[in-house]
């Protein structure tokens, strides 16, 4: 017997009528297409059906030791940034017309989604100082991996890829996985005092390098000299690819486009998207116009309708898998549409001045934090000569992981111990300070350092 459920409109009476219309007597008759030797006759082990009340209760119990229940204070960034978000963003993205619509393949009934994508592409291209943006990608890490694949297509015949050692370690892992079967030789450019070594880049560079990948601000928070790195890359006709996980920094730092980037990618989570234990986020992907036909992912373009009115539609889809199949520029089918919409609304609400001011607040708070943390005498800056945006590495006298653990017991996450990514780095702590931390919060962290480190 088919059980009744609130998600299923068909009543037992309806079912009888529908079966009759199908010319059969029972549900079982409709399942004859499944051969009996591969039929499953048990019950799936997901337990009994639960009401909303029961599930809510369960969630509360499960999350009792979580960050939220503890009202914990956190200085963790490292690729995911805790920024403010106006309530209107959440409310607007709950509208069923946005939330429960399909990919806008039928432009006549998807103009809302399409215009939002057009605005998204415009803002993202503007922020990166690039000519074109796609309609979004899975996240920052996969955007970067796809940028490398795009570089392979543009620079066919070249087989080396140079990647700065200051790129987010998890981004590097993803890149390595993506390239494993494609015959690309990856080399890592060492660092010098926290940023990519220009001299090492020069010595690693050769005519068979397809692209050079740099992250700025880099994983350690330091701002890279993109202009100089780009000039070196171009001297051997390598493409210059920039990755920006903390995209709020684009409000104040020179844009990747102005620094000579051919492809620039990033993570749009910074645009008020909830941290959500690591996803879903929104990958940003921009390039020069000359390479647009090699770009992966969906693109939204402006056009007109039969009455000549301004309209939008997905375009250049001949690059994509549903048309080109194995010759497509990428296997990607979806974008991260709802999160792209979230970012678009957030950027619209921040506006030209607010976005800039928010970045200044981040910079100011991080500089204040550097100052008070160093003054404790318990820590020093690992890269004192480098400029940073809202994240920096402090060097403790003892184990950073132990300090973080002790602090966690008091409801504070002081940052990420770098031993998480490199077991030989026992003393480094990556600290992020956004506008959401008050002066008191920062002073509290300093006190904790005095007491525990």
């Amino acid at each position, binding site marked *: 017997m*088919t*059980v009744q*459920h609130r998600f299923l*409109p068909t009543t037992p009476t309806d079912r009888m009528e*529908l079966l009759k219309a199908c010319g059969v007597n029972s549900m079982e008759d409709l399942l004859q*297409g499944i*051969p009996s030797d591969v039929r*499953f006759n048990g019950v*799936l*082990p997901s*337990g009994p059906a*639960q009401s909303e009340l029961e*599930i809510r209760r369960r969630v509360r119990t*499960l999350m009792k030791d979580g960050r*939220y229940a503890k009202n914990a204070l956190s200085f963790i960034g490292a690729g995911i940034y805790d920024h*403010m978000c*106006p309530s209107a963003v959440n409310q607007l993205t*709950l509208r*069923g*017309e*946005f*939330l429960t*619509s399909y*990919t806008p393949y039928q432009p006549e009934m*998807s*103009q*809302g*989604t399409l215009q*939002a994508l057009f*605005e998204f592409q415009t*803002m993202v*291209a503007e922020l990166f100082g690039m000519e074109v943006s796609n309609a979004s990608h*899975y996240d920052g890490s996969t955007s970067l991996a796809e940028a490398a694949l795009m570089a392979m297509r543009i620079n066919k015949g070249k087989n080396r890829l140079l990647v700065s050692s200051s790129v987010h370690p998890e981004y590097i892992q993803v890149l390595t*996985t993506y390239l494993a*079967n494609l015959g690309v030789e990856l080399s890592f450019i060492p660092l010098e005092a926290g940023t990519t070594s220009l001299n090492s880049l020069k010595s690693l560079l050769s005519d068979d390098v397809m692209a050079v990948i740099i992250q700025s601000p880099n994983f350690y928070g330091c701002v890279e000299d993109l202009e100089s790195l780009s000039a070196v890359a171009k001297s051997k006709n390598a493409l210059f690819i920039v990755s920006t996980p903390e995209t709020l920094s684009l409000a*104040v730092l020179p844009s990747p486009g102005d620094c000579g980037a051919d492809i620039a990618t990033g993570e749009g989570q910074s645009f008020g998207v909830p941290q959500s234990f*690591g996803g*879903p986020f929104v990958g940003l992907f921009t390039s020069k116009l000359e390479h*647009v036909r090699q770009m992966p992912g969906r693109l939204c*373009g402006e056009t007109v*309708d039969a009455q000549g009115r301004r309209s939008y*539609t997905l*375009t250049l889809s001949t690059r994509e898998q549903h048309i080109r*199949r194995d010759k497509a520029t990428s*296997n*990607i089918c979806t*974008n*991260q549409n*709802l*999160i792209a919409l979230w970012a678009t609304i957030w950027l619209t*609400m921040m*506006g*030209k*001045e607010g976005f800039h001011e928010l970045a*200044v607040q981040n*910079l100011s*708070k991080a500089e*204040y934090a550097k100052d008070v943390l160093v003054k404790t005498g318990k820590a020093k800056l690992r890269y004192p000569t480098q400029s940073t945006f809202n994240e920096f590495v402090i060097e403790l006298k003892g184990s950073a992981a132990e300090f973080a653990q002790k602090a966690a017991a008091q409801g504070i996450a002081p940052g*990420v111990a770098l031993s998480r990514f490199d077991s030989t780095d026992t003393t480094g702590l990556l600290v992020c300070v956004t506008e959401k931390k*008050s002066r008191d919060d920062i002073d509290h962290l300093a006190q904790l350092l005095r007491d525990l480190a």
Partner: protein
Amino acid sequence: MEFLKKSTGHAIVLEEPPSFETSRPGAVGTDLPTLDVPRIEPKSVFKKVRNRKARLPELSEPEVMRHFTRMSTWNYAIDLGIYPLGSCTMKYNPRFNEEIARSGELSEAHPYDPIEWSQGHLRVMWELTEDLKGVTGMPGISLQPAAGAHGELTGLMLVSAYHKAKGRHRKTILTADTAHGTNPASAALAGFQIVQIATGEDGVIHPDALAAVLNDDVAALMTTNPNTLGIFEKNIQTVANMLHEKDALLYIDGANLNAVLGLSRPGDFGADVIQFNLHKTFSTPHGGGGPGSGPIAVSERLLPFLPVPRLEKHGEKIVLVEDAPQSIGRVKAFFGNYGMFIRAWCYIRALGGEGLRAVSENAILNANYMRSQLKDVLYMPINAPTLHEVVFNDRNQRDLNLDTTKMAKRLIDYGMHPMTVHFPLCVKNAIMIEPTETESRSEMDRFVSALKEIIETPGVEQAPTRVFRERVDETKAARELRLTYKFKD
């Protein structure tokens, strides 16, 4: 038809230009906290700063609210009516899931939080993993892939790693002509070449057709089951055995899993890898095209190669394990689209094991009802038992100057999203209908009567006209590329 007002579902639909045109200097959309530390100017810190502020729009909060709300009214949505896109599984999205996933308890966590704070989240991931093992009867899960196509890519990387570990480089992936476009594209990205197998007249893969192309270079066969004709691959057990005899693997595209929950498990017939599309089968919202989530399940053979980090249960504690020497590595930063896991987890809890089976039974019943109502007007090229979707074409309409595309576009004027058209590729001018289990009989009847009325009144050339925008010029969009707003300054 009576119920129709406007195709987008709204009685009042207003024009709304891009925000860059309504922007006015001085308008403020949000308040920032008062800066309680000394203000630092960027130019005092950085050698170089941005040369001018980014040209983001300047609008007040109510203007932003109206801007996006007006735009939303130009969209069709599952909340408004039937969305019978074959193989896309557009079903109702329970709002409870949305509320839970967006609550602070779940949405504020950071993946690098101290592990003691994260136990609840890891527990949710663990339980979802167990649910997915139950649905597939397969022993290994990775939740990491960000979407279905990403899951496909990950699955094929596992296939590649499997053969490499055996010291060989197999280059061929077989796909059926019913395959989604992502299958060959994912295979190419994983470094394989594609050989396509034609399905038989009954719409399924035949052992002879497989035997003709199966050799020692075949790494795996990729097929959707039930396939994109809505037909269960009845020879799948034989196909799996033939592949395994050659030590080739069976990849099942899980896009159509909505048809077989609790009715058939891929692990039972020897599948080696399958990807889930949580946004299809487990009702996480499509969101106008993402975010998706594409976990994979694998057989014993592929366990050593699964991506890292992996979830393991040590006593009552759930831990993340990074150390796995044979792993293909990481396919996405952090742990996957956790926000989507929560929604799927809530959905599965709400239905329970028996409810999941009821989902598939109702999906099958509804597709068969559509078939029964349309089989006399539309031509059905393949007559085999229908599961969750049914495929017709326009053969009966050709003399009427009516084709698949015209029928689809005219449906829009009836206030309904068209079905999938021109797919699967093995059926010329295909019309592919998947009502899903969340449509009532009356919704399906509306769709059927609209389609019948269209067929009875051929010759309407201009559709759609009752929409916010009529016949959008896609050729112009591609020829005269305008991908960003052209600012005046």
